[in-house]
């Protein structure tokens, strides 16, 4: 502040200058008051730093091509009826055979009689039958030893293993 300056810009006048609504009086004051003009300059520097930093931050955010986005936004509107029609055709083409197959298999299943469940008595009866068959087979079956009149004990001179001849 120069010696002839006894007061500074008021809060309101200072803000008006920042807003761009300064008066000739405030401009005249800033021309001679270094304190006020320094404050003004510093504030503008701070704002400029903020703007540069936030803009750089915004620019660093990932971008997507708006042309592609626009196309993708347009496509559903243009092609959605076609898409639905295609989906309906596919549903009919797949659904009808599947349904008819299901119904026919259901019909076949209803024609077949269910297998009766075995009771304990039936199982016992089956086991008796199997045992009697087993006994009858054992009685009728001729032993190969007796069929060829062979002795069950080995002959004393019979070698179990052939000996190697010396040359």
């Amino acid at each position, binding site marked *: 502040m120069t010696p002839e300056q006894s007061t500074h810009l008021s809060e309101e006048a200072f803000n008006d200058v920042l807003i761009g609504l300064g008066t000739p009086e405030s401009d005249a004051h800033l021309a001679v008051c270094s304190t006020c003009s320094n404050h003004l300059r*510093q504030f503008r520097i701070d704002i400029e730093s903020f703007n540069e930093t936030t803009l750089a931050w915004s620019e660093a955010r990932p971008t997507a091509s708006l042309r592609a986005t626009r196309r993708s936004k347009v496509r559903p509107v243009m092609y959605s009826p076609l898409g639905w029609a295609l989906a309906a055709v596919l549903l009919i083409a797949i659904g009808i055979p599947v349904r008819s197959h299901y119904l026919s298999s259901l019909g076949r299943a209803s024609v077949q009689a269910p297998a009766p469940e075995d009771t304990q008595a039936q199982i016992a009866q089956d086991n008796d039958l199997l045992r009697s068959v087993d006994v009858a087979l054992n009685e009728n079956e001729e032993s190969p030893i007796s069929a060829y009149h062979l002795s069950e004990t080995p002959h004393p001179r019979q070698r179990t293993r052939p000996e190697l001849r010396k040359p």
Partner: protein
Amino acid sequence: MSTYSVATFDLGAVPGMEIESSETDKVRHISELDDIDALARKYRARIIRFVAYSTGDPDLAETIAQDTLLRAYNGKENFRGDCSISTWLTGIAINVLRNHQRTERYKFWKRVNSSAIDVNEMASFLPAQSSSPESQLLAREKVKQLAGVLETLSNNQRTIFLMKFSEEMEVADISEVLGMQVNTVRTHLHRALTAVRSQLGAKI
């Protein structure tokens, strides 16, 4: 940074500005609007910044930026060329955001999950300048401080502050876009500035 709803305003179509511009400017603006990717390259980051710091939700900002650019491109015939494209886009972004915040889906996802700005991460984007490391550190702290102060402002104050000091819009344009009286805009700006300067230690 917590998320907050942006100030809601009674907006119809974005009103035209009363700023006179030449025919050449108008032709240039309209040709800019003809290429959607070029439009996105030039303005997307600014819209994201504005919405992200108005709402505190960077994911929402990306959605709004995309919708804003698409809407601008699809409605480019409505651009009368009597304001800058940036101002026009900001107006559209406010409309899109307001409509979005009214939806039940937005309300649901805001309750369930909403992203927030990491101020430390954001401050690391401070462009390297030729100043000393101490000055860089100080500038980074100031940026973080300012982001913190913005959170404490009301929705109106924050939105208008960003429109004025980040989007560099004139008070008359802000008033027109928001459908708000010029004096009301000034009042919000004064309150926001008082709070910001007080927190930054920039008061005389």
